[in-house]
Every structure is written in structure tokens, then in C-alpha cells.
């Protein structure tokens, strides 16, 4: 039995198979509509996350399965003091697979070590959010046709953004990737990631102005400056509008550059950009459903059976 706790839990070969399956689901959704008949997904969300939870639930419903679960800690036994270990032991008796979001880092690791069913980490605090990384990779592969040989700019909060850190780690396993980190000094990429890139001799550069580098990029990954990551409200207010991608800046970009964003977007991408064909962040959401469908099938080992 396998779990998905960290984006690097799967090898690149395993990811290729997962993405091939997701691509086939996209092409032939009707062939997968009953693959999970009689199976149940438990969505155990100890903190609200409408987008991720609904994506998981949609994925399971698309496969013909059903969904049980809770959407915040107050409506679970956690409010009575039940441990994660006990909760997953109980859930294992009800469901066939579990997607868990928890505000504490490492909660999914604890769940996996006590679970009788596959556990998918749907976000553990500021630590990991592997299905977002899979979504990002599938989107890039589907729309660029490859996961190698491109220059990707990551813009915004590179210090606290877990999706950015996970994506860099995942992409660093592919050939020919060049990173451009675009952030204010206060939100620059952590040193341990820079060290990892140096050790692997992966080219990168750090810049402050998006306009200076947008013309060099094949991909631009925008992020939100998150209020909850700041201890100081003044710092948040000063930095939240540092980068706003608008039409003027996008005009400096290549015709085939893609703009990705993990969503939710606040104001870091102007709505006037939404209609540009290079803006693919809403397509990204759709790929998130495909990749979660492929992940559920893979962890339940269903494609081997049928």
C-alpha cells in the first residue's frame, strides 16, 4: 500500500505513468466513469479549503465512487481531542482512501503510519501540498508538451510559498530547467533551496523587477502574498502589491509563455489578463481534477485490476 505525503514520493518514471493516465482520462473520461464504483473517498479536512476538497470530491465522483468526510476540525472528533492516529484508524474502517488536510506540519505522515488505507496529503500547514505540485507538473506537461528544457520564473512570495518550494524540488529532477526567482528582498527564496540548486548545478538567477526578465521566460508562476504568513501587518501591507501582472507587463512576454497560479488569486494578476491565451490558471484547476483522478486510481491500484 502506498501513500502520497511528499511531492518527491514518486519517481519521475512513476510520475510519467501518472501523467499518462491523467492524459488518457482527459481524452476518454467516459472510460473511467465507473472505475471506482463501490469505493469511498474520505476527505478529512481539519481546516477549510474549498478548492482542494472539491477537487478531490469531484475526482472521486467522476470515477463513480462516493465521498464521506468533514470540512473543518470543529465538525470532527478532533474538537473532542481525538488524535490524528486514532481518527485515521477509524476512517480506515469506513473508506477505501483518504485525502487529509491538517494545519499541523507532518500530520499526514502520522496518518500514513497508522492507516489501513492509502493516505493523500492534501496540505499539512506550510509544509507540503503534493497534489498542487502534481497539478502544476501536469499542466506544464500538457500545455508545453514536456517537463524539461525551459526557463521558469517564479514570482511573488518565494519565502513562505510552499507550492513554490515543492515545484522547484520537483522540477529540479528534470533536465535543462533554468529558474528565475522574482521577489522583493524580504520574500526571497530560502537559502537551503539555493544550496540545493548549486549542488545540482542547476542554473538560477534572482531578480527584483518582473519587467526585467519576463521576456526570457517560457513559464511564469505567480503566487499570492499570504497574510497568514506574516507576524507583522505592516510588512504584509507593504509587500502585498509588490507584483501585479497586468497587460502592460504581459506585452513584454513571449507569445508562447504560460502564466500559472496555484489560486486563489487576490490582485497579483489583473483580471484584464484572464482572457489572454497565455493565462492558464483556470485550466490548471481542471488538470488538478484529472491528476487527482489518476492518483486515486493509482493508489487504489485499480488500473492494474481492470
Amino acid at each position, binding site marked *: 500500500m502506498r501513500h502520497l505525503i511528499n511531492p518527491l514520493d514518486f519517481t519521475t518514471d512513476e510520475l510519467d505513468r501518472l501523467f499518462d493516465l491523467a492524459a488518457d482520462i482527459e481524452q476518454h473520461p467516459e472510460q473511467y466513469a465507473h472505475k471506482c464504483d463501490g469505493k469511498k473517498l474520505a476527505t478529512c479536512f481539519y481546516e477549510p479549503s474549498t478548492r482542494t476538497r472539491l477537487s478531490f470530491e469531484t475526482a472521486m465522483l467522476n470515477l463513480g465512487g462516493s465521498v464521506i468526510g468533514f470540512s473543518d476540525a470543529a465538525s470532527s472528533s478532533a474538537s473532542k481531542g481525538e*488524535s*490524528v*492516529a486514532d481518527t485515521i484508524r477509524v476512517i480506515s474502517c469506513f473508506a477505501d482512501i483518504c485525502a487529509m488536510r*491538517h*494545519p*499541523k*506540519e*507532518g*500530520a499526514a*505522515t*502520522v496518518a500514513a503510519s497508522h492507516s489501513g488505507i492509502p493516505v493523500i496529503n492534501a496540505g*499539512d*500547514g*506550510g*509544509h507540503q501540498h503534493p497534489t498542487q505540485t502534481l497539478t502544476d507538473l501536469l499542466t506544464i506537461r500538457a500545455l508545453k508538451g514536456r517537463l524539461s528544457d525551459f526557463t521558469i520564473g517564479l514570482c511573488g512570495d518565494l519565502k513562505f510559498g510552499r507550492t513554490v518550494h515543492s515545484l522547484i524540488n520537483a522540477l529540479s529532477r528534470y533536465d535543462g530547467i533554468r529558474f528565475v526567482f522574482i521577489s522583493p528582498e524580504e520574500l526571497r527564496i530560502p537559502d537551503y533551496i539555493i544550496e540545493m540548486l548549486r549542488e545540482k548545478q542547476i542554473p538560477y538567477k534572482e531578480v527584483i523587477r518582473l519587467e526585467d526578465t519576463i521576456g526570457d521566460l517560457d513559464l511564469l508562476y505567480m503566487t499570492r502574498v499570504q497574510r497568514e504568513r506574516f507576524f507583522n501587518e505592516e510588512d504584509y501591507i507593504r509587500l502585498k502589491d509588490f507584483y501585479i501582472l497586468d497587460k502592460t507587463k504581459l506585452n513584454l512576454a513571449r507569445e508562447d509563455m504560460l502564466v500559472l497560479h496555484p489560486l486563489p488569486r487576490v490582485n497579483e494578476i489583473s483580471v484584464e489578463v484572464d482572457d489572454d491565451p497565455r493565462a492558464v490558471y483556470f485550466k490548471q484547476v481542471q488538470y488538478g481534477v484529472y491528476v487527482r483522478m489518476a492518483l486515486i486510481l493509482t493508489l487504489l491500484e485499480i488500473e492494474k485490476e481492470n
Partner: protein
Amino acid sequence: MLNVGKIEEGYVLDHIQAGKSLTIYHLLHLDKTDAQVAIIKNARSSKMGKKDILKVECPIGSIDLDVLAFLDRNITVNVIRNGEIMQKEDLILPREVRNVIKCKNPRCITSIEQGLEHIFVLSDATKGTYRCKYCESNPPAQ
């Protein structure tokens, strides 16, 4: 100069950072054994200025010394048999350490989950760095 008698069989842990001997005494669970232990604090050292030393009279192999490498790789472990130093034992970094220190990350699941062991896993053997098994944060300085 303070003199402490020789031991017949056991270990002399030398070059302990001054002031850390009691911490190591507890982490080796020496408080829970019948072993005779001499704790020497602030001994003069040409190499370190001052240092602590632990002398433990016990059967060889009866205490788990792996944790020493995690705590301080500069500690020298002298193995004593028949009152003589038989060998200086090389400290090997343990693959993981359990319940030696606690994760201090307030966002880590260990901060709320009952009965959960505090486990640090060796992440880089060359640098001797460890990370919490759960939140992957570095251990607090000892």
C-alpha cells in the same frame, strides 16, 4: 588538581563541551542504571580551555552511545578494559534518534499529537544534519 580513580571496565567520555555532561548523563539514561558514574565538570583542557568528562563503570556494550554523535561529534569515547584504554571508539551518526530532543516547531504535529515520538532523521551524513521526521525542520541547538 582533582583526581578521580581509574575504572576497570567501561567508558571514559572525554572532550565533552563544558557544562554539557549532565545533559549527556540523562540522555544516555545513566540515571536509570546502577553503573558507577563520575561526572567531572570544567576540567582544564589544552584543546578546549575547559571540558567535561564522564567516567562510567559498566560492562562494555551495555549503554547505547549512538546518540553522542548526534549531540556532539567532538566527544572522544575511550573504551576501558582491565583498567586500560583498549580503543577509542569512532562515533557513527545514527540514522535516526528517538525522543532525545523535542521538535520546537510550534507548527509541527508533535506539538499536539498525544503519544507521538520525537524522531529526527539523518538528512545529510556529510554535514551531520538532521531533520524532524514530521515537519522536516532542523533540531534546536543543544
